[in-house]
């Protein structure tokens, strides 16, 4: 559902079944009746202005490395639109993801170190995949991390897309909160109270009108203003780096951007710079009545935005003197985070009156219970026996996204060894990935095509990787096409014989001089021509016959 105008559909029964199955695997207790709620989201990612969400089960647990991890809640939600860009006044979203069923699993607050967080996320991911109904690929499994430390605050980190980042992001957040506590303690030592930070803004337009700052100049050209506020006793603290590239000043800037719709801020610890020179800095400080230890922040924008931006800065500075604010932060690809929005409370939730509650009958639970998918370890064991895979390969396959594809392929491509398929789907694809080949573009049906071609003898198994590489760059293509384009089609017997004859003829002397002993060197020469297009055993066979003919 993409339009708010569309009347809501009933709860998708398949999605509900998957969520219930997931709940059972997490040993959580399904609700007797599911109530769909509206969770207000007004950043534009939901066309309705709210996200539909429902508690499916409560009070589960899983065991990770011998430690019991409580699963507080499993919810079924509608995914939001994906932001693809924004300008100062608008945000652009893609709606293709909007309304896709999303399962949210919340663990209890028991994870004590960043590494454990990563392991728990990995374990939950494994269970999700066990349902075989969960979409794979970057962004389809996301981790929201709630991090709090002693004396700190509950901070939600959103958008951690890769499992490897979980422990890193948690680590950075702990570091950030420790850094903020240090700032608070220093402010206390400097005797700064929140009430000392006043929201008294001074118009510094005339001071900065002579600066070379492009931002200031373009703002002033559009009739905007430059406002500044004094931050008592903040000197040196604004540039304090909490985590890589995130300073206290950055935190203030993000707040100002969010609340004031401004492009950014200038703070005294980073000046002179950006076309604002020391004489401007001095004058601004003077106009604000700054003392030796005071800092300041400047915002250039239209009057309303500038005021809102500075209000947000003052608010953040006051918090710095008192506590760590609860907030929602967005993860960067390196695991550091930036301020996203304030943390919403229960108040943003109200009933979705257009979707009737769903009773979960015993019959439904029994049916799901009987069809409960197996867990990763179990699956790996089964693969070992059924397809004679090594334990390592079996585990890798279960952990990969390709288990359903593997089963499809092996069922169809009868004459290809399962261990070969498994190796390609795990180790080989990973090595292609390392070479920056976008293997995630290759669809399951394309994988199947590639192996089917090998099975039917239309291409050699040595060609599979080249075919997959080609498909990764040609997502709309077919394996057949790849084989054609890369000239990997198996040679017919007569084609092969022709090539062998040519090679033999152009190396007459070698053959004459060495007789049957020339086989090894001739083999190399022929294979150089037909690699990937002929079975080496067959080449040997034909070449031997040919050489014998020559000798005769």
């Amino acid at each position, binding site marked *: 559902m993409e*339009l*708010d*105008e*569309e*009347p809501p559909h009933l709860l998708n029964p398949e999605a509900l079944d998957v969520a219930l199955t997931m709940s059972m695997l997490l040993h959580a*207790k399904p*609700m*007797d*009746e*599911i*109530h769909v*709620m*509206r*969770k*207000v989201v*007004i950043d534009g990612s939901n*066309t*309705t*202005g*709210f996200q539909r*969400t*429902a*508690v499916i089960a*409560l*009070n589960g647990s899983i065991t990770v490395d011998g430690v019991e991890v409580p699963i507080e*809640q499993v*919810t079924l939600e509608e995914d939001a639109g994906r932001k693809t860009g924004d300008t100062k006044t608008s945000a652009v979203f893609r709606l293709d993801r909007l309304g896709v069923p999303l399962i949210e699993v919340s663990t209890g607050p028991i994870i004590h170190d960043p590494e454990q967080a990563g392991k728990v996320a990995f374990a939950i991911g494994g269970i999700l995949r066990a349902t075989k109904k969960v979409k794979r690929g970057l962004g389809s499994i996301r981790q929201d991390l709630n991090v709090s430390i002693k004396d700190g605050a509950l901070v939600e980190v959103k958008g951690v897309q890769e499992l490897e980042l979980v422990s890193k992001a948690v680590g950075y957040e702990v570091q950030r909160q420790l850094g903020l506590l240090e700032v608070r303690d220093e402010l206390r030592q400097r005797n700064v109270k929140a009430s000392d930070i006043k929201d008294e803004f001074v118009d510094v337009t005339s001071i900065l009108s002579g600066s070379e700052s492009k931002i200031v100049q373009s703002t002033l050209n559009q009739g905007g203003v430059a406002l500044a506020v004094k931050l008592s006793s903040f000197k040196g603290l604004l540039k304090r780096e909490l985590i890589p590239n995130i300073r206290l000043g950055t935190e203030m800037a993000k707040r100002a951007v969010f609340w004031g719709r401004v492009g950014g801020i200038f703070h005294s610890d980073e000046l002179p710079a950006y076309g604002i020179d020391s004489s401007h800095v001095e004058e601004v400080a003077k106009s604000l009545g700054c003392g030796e230890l005071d800092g300041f922040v400047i915002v250039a924008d239209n009057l309303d935005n500038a005021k809102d931006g500075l209000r947000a800065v003052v608010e953040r500075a006051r918090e710095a003197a008192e506590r760590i604010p609860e907030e929602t932060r967005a993860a960067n690809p390196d695991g550091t985070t930036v301020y996203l929005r304030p943390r919403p*409370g*229960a*108040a*943003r*939730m*109200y*009933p979705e*009156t257009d979707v*009737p*509650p769903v*009773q979960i009958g015993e019959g439904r639970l029994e049916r799901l219970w009987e069809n409960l998918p197996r867990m990763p370890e179990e699956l790996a064991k089964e693969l070992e026996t059924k397809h004679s895979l090594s334990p390592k390969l079996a585990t890798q396959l279960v952990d990969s996204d390709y288990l359903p594809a593997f089963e499809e392929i092996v069922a169809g491509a009868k004459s290809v060894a399962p261990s070969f398929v498994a190796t390609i789907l795990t180790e080989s694809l990973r090595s292609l990935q390392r070479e920056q080949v976008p293997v995630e573009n290759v669809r399951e049906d394309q994988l199947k095509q590639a192996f089917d071609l090998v099975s039917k003898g239309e291409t050699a198994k040595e060609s599979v990787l080249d075919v997959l590489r080609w498909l990764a760059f040609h997502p709309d293509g077919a394996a057949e096409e790849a084989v054609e384009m890369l000239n990997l089609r198996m040679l017919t017997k007569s084609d092969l014989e022709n090539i062998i004859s040519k090679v033999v003829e152009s190396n007459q002397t070698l053959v004459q001089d060495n007789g049957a002993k020339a086989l090894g060197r001739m083999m190399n020469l022929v294979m150089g021509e037909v690699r990937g297009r002929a079975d080496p055993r067959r080449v040997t066979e034909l070449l031997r016959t040919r050489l014998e003919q020559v000798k005769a």
Partner: protein
Amino acid sequence: MSVSALEGYHGEILRRLRKSGAKVGSVIRLTSKSGEVFEGILIPRSEYSDPRHIVLKMRNGYNIGISLERTEKLEVIGEGEKPHFTKPSSPPIRVGLPRVAIISTGGTIASRVDYRTGAVQPALTAADLASVVPELSSIAEVDAHILFSEYSENIGPMHWKGMAEEVAKRIADGAEGVVISHGTDTLHYTAAALSFALSGLPIPVLLVGAQRSSDRPSSDAASNLTGAVALAARADMALVGVAMHQDLSDHIILAHRGTRVRKCHTSRRDAFKSINANPLASYDLKTGQIELTNGVPKRDKSRKLALRSRFDQHAYLIKFYPGFNTSMIDSAVSAGARGIVLEGTGLGHVSRQLFDSVKKALKREIPFFMTSQTIWGRVDMNVYNTGRDLLNLGVTPLEDMIAETAIVKLMWVVAQTKSASKIREMMLRSIAGEMTSRTLVEAS
């Protein structure tokens, strides 16, 4: 304890909740037979839900339903707050603004949500409206009344009469514009009815509704109401219109002529379209600018309002379709029909299998009128033989009048005259801009 203290609960659950002293809003703890514990605020249950589950709102805001059969113990562990609605202080009334009367007939155009329990309370008084839609107080001096509260599908001729009379009263009281809030399903029928019932209007009367209820962040209720009030207060026009969204954006509110408008979508906010005509006016929500279409009747305080608010339900609207059973016409006739509007195909046709029934009815002095189910366009029965046959039988084509307006007009006409020829004459005379002989390119 009043029943509403345990709203929506019945039977065994109601008994157990009463016994434990629980009320909606109480914090209760349920212990299941298997030992699970659920805590939360007791939430009212929808009257359409089954009687076997108790609904709790957990601390994190989610609602869950717990089956009574699985519940071993039910105890009240705290008194929650009742749903309450704190009113934001109303902005001061600015004197000197135009006086606009808002008449509410149902459909909660504005409401407040108690986010803790999810309860919705309609905002109906002027003060309520002003607090929910504060923009209004800078546009007009609003005076709001509830006339009745009815789903629009239940609204009929008696309600039209009541609305017309109320409008007349408000005009007599000095209103400079009237806004009627109304459910959207039959909004356009009411708009047509009022257009005929209120002739010689000195001021504009705008009907307004909402396609997305006001408990949604994306609701169009407040923006439509703002547009309607602004147009009622300031637009230099004097007729009945419908004020709704132009498109999907909260940008332009259009006023459509009451006799030319139709709901054309089940759920989109731009469901209302002017058919075979241009909208009357537009209001820009961002700039507050009003643009008027040429030829719209202007305000004139000295103009005398004529109220003719009677409607007679012995008028029928019959839609033709392939496989039509002619008994539908016969039974309308035997039920005492005083006129029948046909919604024919294309340019205004029905199968010749209907001819006998039509002929019989016409013989009994029951006039037939032709409109088209294509919605847009004009009927023309001189193009094909079937049309010519129908004309020869005595069926009267209604030009570019839409079927919905035609049936409302017929109800109004037959309430005023018994003569078939007078009925025909009135149906063919444009009384409230419901038909024209000229089709404009941009209105097609």
